[in-house]
């Protein structure tokens, strides 16, 4: 049987030649992402800003009557609802701010949910209430802080690990790639205005774990080659390492992205944003391992000396090299 070769043997693509252009594009995309987040903002769910979310399916209707809903719920006097489709055309989530004073008297929030549900049922007797989420301001700000902390802790944690296993330059390169992937994912959420909730944080944490996969495999090969080819120039050595691991990078991205794309297309509607974030993050992560984390090593002056076992080096260098002997 003739086997499939996605990447031909012994490729010799000059990836690093393009590193400045790639870096420029990435910086541009990151700036655009930050600008998007700053101008359009993220569409935070009730998890992070508090409030109430009611999920409804309009059984037997082609599409949800979004405009009519907005009007009829607005008339209840609790302010304007944010209505967003999720999944099928006839499924929506209705988000409301909690009424004033609900922090002290949770009954007020109950009352609001009951009135909204009654209103929806009155106009659409066949509507199905799929769930009610109600999060107080206190809990939502806790969730926000916890989520942010988890992201930072995860990024620092894996960077520390890379530093510990390789050299500090590799750690910085890894964290740069992470910042890159996470920023672009934030940009995607600002651009599409998909709901940003607890699940999104989980997706981001997963991206941190998996986008580093490629980076580490390439770093591992760079370290191996640094010890093997002492005299090779750094850009050539990085190109060699990226090319040697290229078919693996492509194959792994493919095997991870295949089920994720399936999840986006056929998976549960409720976690659509979660699935999109993971697929996007892992896609961007593969790119950034080649074009962000590897070139960083040149800029940070990693050289073949960095990994030579200590006993073979002149004394003057010995102290710096201890941690590099793996």
């Amino acid at each position, binding site marked *: 049987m003739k086997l499939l070769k996605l990447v031909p043997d012994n490729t010799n693509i000059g990836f690093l030649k393009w590193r400045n252009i790639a870096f420029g594009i990435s910086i541009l995309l990151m700036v655009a992402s930050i600008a998007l987040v700053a101008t359009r903002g993220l569409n935070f769910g009730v998890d992070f800003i508090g409030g109430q979310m009611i999920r409804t399916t309009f059984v037997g209707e082609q599409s949800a009557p979004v405009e009519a809903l907005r009007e009829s719920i607005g008339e209840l006097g609790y302010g304007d609802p944010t209505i967003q489709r999720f999944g099928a055309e006839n499924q929506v989530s209705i988000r409301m701010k909690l009424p004033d004073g609900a922090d002290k008297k949770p009954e007020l929030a109950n009352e609001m949910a009951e009135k909204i549900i009654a209103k929806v049922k009155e106009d659409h007797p066949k509507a199905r209430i799929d769930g009610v989420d109600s999060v107080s301001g206190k809990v939502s700000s806790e969730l926000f802080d916890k989520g942010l902390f988890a992201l930072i802790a995860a990024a620092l944690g894996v960077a520390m690990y890379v530093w510990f296993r390789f050299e500090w330059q590799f750690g910085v390169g890894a964290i740069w790639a992470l910042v890159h992937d996470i920023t672009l994912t934030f940009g995607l959420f600002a651009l599409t205005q998909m709901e940003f909730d607890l699940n999104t944080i989980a997706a981001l944490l997963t991206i941190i774990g998996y986008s*580093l996969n490629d980076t580490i495999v390439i770093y591992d090969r760079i370290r191996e080659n640094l010890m093997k080819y002492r005299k090779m120039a750094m850009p050539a050595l990085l190109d060699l390492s990226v090319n040697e691991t290229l078919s693996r990078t492509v194959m792994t991205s493919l095997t991870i992205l295949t089920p994720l794309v399936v999840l986006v297309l056929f998976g549960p509607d409720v976690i659509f944003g979660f699935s999109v974030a993971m697929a996007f993050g892992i896609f961007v992560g593969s790119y950034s391992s080649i074009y962000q984390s590897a070139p960083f090593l040149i800029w940070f002056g990693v050289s073949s000396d960095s990994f030579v076992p200590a006993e073979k080096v002149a004394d003057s260098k010995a102290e710096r090299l201890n941690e590099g002997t793996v």
Partner: protein
Amino acid sequence: MLDFPRWRVTMLNALIVLSILAAIPSFLPKAWLDRIPAGVPKETISLGLDLAGGSHILLEADTAQLQRDRLESLEDSVRTAMRRAEPRISIDSVTRTNGRLSFVVPDSAQIDAAREALLPIIANSTGGRDWSIEVTDGNRITLVPSGTANTTVLDQAMNSAKDVIDRRINALGTLEPTIIRQGADRIVVQVPGLQDPQALKELIGKTAKLEFKLVDEGADPEQTAQGKARVGSQVLPYPDNPTGIPYIAVRRLGGISGDKLTGAQQSFDPQDNQPVVNIQFDGEGGQRFARMTQQNTGKLFAIILDGQVISAPRINEPILGGSSQISGSFTVESANQLAIALNSGALPVDLKVVEERSVGPDLGADSIKSGILAALIGTAGVLLWMILTYGRFGIYASYALVINVAMILAVMSLFNATLTLPGIAGFVLTIGAAVDANVLINERIREERSKGRRVIQALENGYKEASRAIFDANITNVIAAVLLFIFGSGPIRGFAVVLMIGIVTSVFTAVTLTRMWVAGWVKRNRPQDINI
């Protein structure tokens, strides 16, 4: 690498069989499971609320209220103790600020006697002191809560609140609630299968603190309407007051509390057939109630529930039998709810709902269906890529992937882990990521072969050289998953659990198992060339 002793092969095969067996119960219908005799392990994966449908309610204690209550009852005890002291000690300028109780003993000669009288009040059951006594300006005594007292009190209150909630939910019938404390001042209540948590929230949110106090009949109605009370009285809300003023003044002291009940039932008033709640006092409570009604026959007394007066009947005759009736504008339902709440005891602390999530069963069922569909298509896609790319080695990786799925399910079943909606996504992700180890190994073997190494040498190097990268890559995933577990809430934790289990099992299946199969094949066939 060809060195695979027979005992190791047997052990690994046994492990595979056991995993598949352990995963089976999760797929059996409940009726079948019930017929499996006891003793046979039949743990299953439980479904999270977001899949099974149900309600998640997070309650937070009003700790300030708890402290106020505690200070109030301290003041009561102090006043009683001073009154009963021989000779009686008079006190004034009583203040309660910043969690401290402070008062002046005008006759400074009585300071020592006052101290003495306080000792039994401030001692706690473990022999320590809940309050410390400070004397300033010669005759001002201040009671300061001792360091750990507030925490201990809160802790005890939360524990008994948890029990009270448990009793109340059990009184509703066949629900299977999970009630756990979270942090110092929170309780999580999860009730699978409950669609409309409204009634439940009303029931568990009700403090059900019942009090009987005498109405201050001499109070000026105008003052009362403005919320002003005379010394020794307090104004309470009374929404159903027949006078139309929604307030009433009651005497602060001399009332009795409703924590001395032995039972409460919803019933009907024989005279007007209105729903009422019958209550029975225990021995001590009955005596106190009898004494109060005897001494105050002909007066009005207020029945107070959670700081709100529900009715204020006249005491027509002393009530000596230890039972009484609470009337008010009840419906059958609300009277029944009050009876349940009174039977389960009062919550020792006010609780309010700070987070609530409920999911209907239909949405959950849809999610399971599409989740399983995505997992199946995803797996098929990954298997296809692997077999097309690596041939025989892809088939080994595919076996490993299928066993990996069984092992994740097995571990989740054995630990009774909860599968949540994000957990399904974690599952799908794990399927894609699990074969990464095989990709690394197979690519390495390819490389070694193209460098001209002989088959066995190439296989050996492939497994050896790739394992370092596999290890490093998986560690970062573990770091992320552990943080997810620590900081995540509910469903997200379910996701982290699947990821962590998946990482461990996938390294085992993708590395150890495929190596065993490859070794067996090489031993049997001694291939000179491999197609990879």
